[in-house]
């Protein structure tokens, strides 16, 4: 079975300060992990993905995440927050070895607020 736990439902930061959104996963198989962002009244946009290569993954808009197998974590970070980063962020897991099926399992989401 697979599951994702996003450890914070809300995170609030000041513009220009670092962002840390925490995610722990559980997977019986070698996982693929993703972070998606959802702006209000918009669809989901892929920020970055880990499939099996480098454990430090760089994504769009300055975001990056590190896959730590020993800690079963995949935390999302950004050195300096912008006002435009305010949105809902979802950590997602799927299996790379599930017979070719890759349904996505979403976490509950973390709402990021960025203050001036």
């Amino acid at each position, binding site marked *: 079975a697979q599951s994702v736990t996003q450890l914070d439902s809300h995170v609030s930061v000041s513009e220009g300060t670092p962002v840390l959104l925490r995610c722990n996963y559980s997977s019986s198989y070698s996982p693929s992990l993703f972070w998606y962002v959802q702006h209000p009244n918009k*669809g*989901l946009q892929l920020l970055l993905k880990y*499939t099996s290569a480098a454990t430090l993954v760089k994504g769009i808009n300055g975001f990056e995440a590190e896959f730590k197998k020993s800690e079963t974590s995949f935390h999302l970070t950004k050195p300096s927050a912008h006002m435009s980063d305010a949105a809902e962020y979802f950590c997602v897991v799927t299996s790379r*070895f599930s017979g*070719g099926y*890759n349904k*996505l*399992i*979403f*976490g509950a989401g973390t709402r990021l607020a960025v203050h001036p």
Partner: protein
Amino acid sequence: DAGVTQSPTHLIKTRGQQVTLRCSPKSGHDTVSWYQQALGQGPQFIFQYYEEEERQRGNFPDRFSGHQFPNYSSELNVNALLLGDSALYLCASSLGSLQGVTYEQYFGPGTRLTVT
């Protein structure tokens, strides 16, 4: 290159009615997945279509059914609507994944269904 498109954008239905939602995948994609996102929650996997067949299904009742057409577009049908079916319905397209390969899923903007 058009991304994933969904129609309609918004829909209001009455309890007990039936609804059909439509999705056109990103050009070149052959797999369509549907997700339900209730307010304040992460998306939940409904089912996935590949080669016009449902090949994986989440924990949703038989009231939820779908179809994929030869051009890879897809429909989601929900019968006997309940108040709890009110949600954002998201369609995602991807390539049919191979064992050990995870192709990312691209999401459409969603259809907001309100059941009164």
